[in-house]
């Protein structure tokens, strides 16, 4: 069992890392031939960094669009960030100070994450417009995250697992040393689902996470009159003339 999971995790991580890097590479390599920031837009690079930060940290545009989606979405993502950071304790020895510090908050974050996800799903199920645009994969993605969260929470609050052994196992994995994983059903489930998430990530809408940084309407500076912006393929048209 420990072996099986080891293989699964190595494979999933490989797919995740290679898939994601490959995707990011295409985004970076694809030119943006025209200046298309959604104005009013910052005129300096510093301004763009601020704009992007507000988008990524606070979901500024979503806030303007729809408070209900924003509150559920932001609750989910903020909790996810905390939970993920809290999970760093399984991979670091000794545990970094600030990771230790956020441990207690992480516990509640699991609960708020569940709330956020359920809120988003309720919206997807019951708001006519959102149901109309949803594909089965949209529902399954929420279901997957809910299942991960619920299995995690159950381990946290109902059927504890041997977290010290879990940590030992993952530290081992990081050093290509396969140790024994506690054979709790919930833990198996949690980890199975997490590998699924890792594999799905580079092929799904989860690409919004890297994508947001490459969106020309958000990451371009508004200075087309001051500086000539020319992509390689567009420049070729000029030399031909």
């Amino acid at each position, binding site marked *: 069992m420990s072996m099986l999971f080891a293989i699964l995790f190595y494979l999933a991580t490989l797919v995740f890392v290679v898939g994601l890097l490959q995707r990011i590479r295409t985004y970076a390599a694809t030119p943006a031939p025209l200046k*298309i920031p959604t104005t009013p837009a910052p*005129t300096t690079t510093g301004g763009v960094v601020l704009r992007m930060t507000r988008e990524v940290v606070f979901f500024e545009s979503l806030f303007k669009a729809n408070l209900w989606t924003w509150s559920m979405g932001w609750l989910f993502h903020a909790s996810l960030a905390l939970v993920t950071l809290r999970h760093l304790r399984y991979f670091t020895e000794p545990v970094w100070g600030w990771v230790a510090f956020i441990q207690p908050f992480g516990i509640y974050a699991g609960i708020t994450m569940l709330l956020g996800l359920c809120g988003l799903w309720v919206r997807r199920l019951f708001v006519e*417009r959102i149901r109309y645009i949803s*594909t089965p994969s949209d529902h399954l993605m929420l279901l997957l995250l809910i299942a991960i969260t619920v299995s995690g929470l159950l381990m946290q609050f109902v059927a504890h697992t041997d977290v010290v052994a879990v940590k030992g196992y993952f530290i081992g994995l990081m050093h290509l040393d396969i140790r024994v994983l506690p054979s709790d059903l919930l833990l198996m489930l949690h980890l199975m689902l997490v590998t699924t998430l890792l594999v799905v990530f580079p092929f799904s809408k989860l690409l919004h996470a890297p994508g*947001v940084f490459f969106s*020309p309407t958000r990451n371009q500076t508004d200075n087309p009159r001051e500086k*000539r912006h020319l992509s390689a393929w567009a420049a070729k048209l000029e030399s031909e003339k």
Partner: protein
Amino acid sequence: MADITAPAYRIIPIVPALKPDAMAGKGPFVASDKINEAIGFPGQLVEDWHDKAIAKMGELLSKYRSLKVYMDACVHCGACSDKCHYFIGTQDPKNMPVARQDLMRSVYRRYFTLPGKLFPKLVGARDLTREVLDEWYNYFNQCSECRRCSVFCPYGIDTAEVTMAAREILDSIGYGQKYSNEIIGKVHKIGNNLGLPGPALIDTLEGLEEDVKEATGIDVRFPIDVKGAEVLLITPSADFFAEPHIDSLIGYAKVFHATGTSWTLSSMASEAGNFGMFIGNYDQLRKIALRIREAALELGVKRIVVGECGHAWRVAYSFWNTLSGVGDGAGEVDRFAQMLQKQLDHRYKQPTHICEFTWDAIERNALTFDKAKNDKHIITFHDSCNVARGSRMGDLPGGQFEIPRNIIKAVASNFVEMSPETTREQTFCCGGGGGLLTDDLLDLRVKGALPRMEVLQQVVDEHGVNFMATICAICKAQFTKVMPIYGFDRRMVGGVHQLVSNAIILGEEK
């Protein structure tokens, strides 16, 4: 056309219920062989359209980061779903921005992503069938590329970029739209969108000089093709004879007169509009923009000023420097751009919007006004989408909102804002932008104007507004057409420089 009526105002502006397929089959006329071939597209739908379309899509995905990222990134959160005026007015769910994108995204997934190849049903992927293609034609010609949706999307996904790509694909397989393609043909053949030939233009301008002389007693000139003039004015051709556009042209001429600016129009580039953007075709966009570069080089002007036209200002402000070198900051070795940039006077912004020009003159106290001349007007301002969300004026972000308003307040006393969810970057499209200003789409245009008409009605009721100023030729044409259908007087719409023209004091009274 008599059967086209305005939709009812919403009692509370809530999101409308869906009416699937309300606008199915209501797309515009398809371009004829002649129209398509004149601008280098296949005359009609080609035999192997399926493969050609997919290949074109692949090409665009590798040329435009926007398209590539936007195809992947959408999470179907629905934030944009109620933001489109065409959805609000028609209630057709495929006019929701995200659903419009999904028409293309479903095909993208099928042909360009692993899950779509393996599990099409699961991720909503579809084969590109003839039905899907017809759906593309229909709904990608019901988007005015106004970018309102992109303001609200958490990733800035811009449906306009998707619409442009779709139209580019459709054109490349011979499935173009009549109105836009016909106009592009005219620009190349005659020099402007309205097909007004040089001699007629010169006649019109002479007539205008006489009219202004009669009205004011002053010799305000409307020069054309004057070599060595300081300013080249590039303005939408509607300004030459359409109502109310022409009143703004008179306004620009009076401002040039009062500031003692030597200026000229160009018969070669007698059009600011650039429908190349609407059809998403870079070659056309570029070719049409290059006419202005040529005119500027030939006439040897020092400044290029752009008249009241929304999409033209987006193209001028955001794209001209890229396309034709009209701007600043080209590299040392960039001979193509340097050739023009060396000629231009960089104490001024290149290009300059006519509102920037006028506001600058007002700030320098170079103009005087008799505000009382505008006292009969209670004025509100409609932000045009391309100016609001695709350009800027002045030095600060948001100058495109402040400067036209400042001008109005400088020349008139009664100014009222419409509801803030519908102005500035959140402004609603007039309903006729993006290559949709054609009578075969009148039903769509009337419905798309609904959100603007609702808030206009509000300020009419509350403040007695009787004039809606705007700085876009398409907005002006669209509103004069659809406002009567909503029960407004068509003369309520006009340009900012129309108000300037009313109030400006020329020469002798100083």
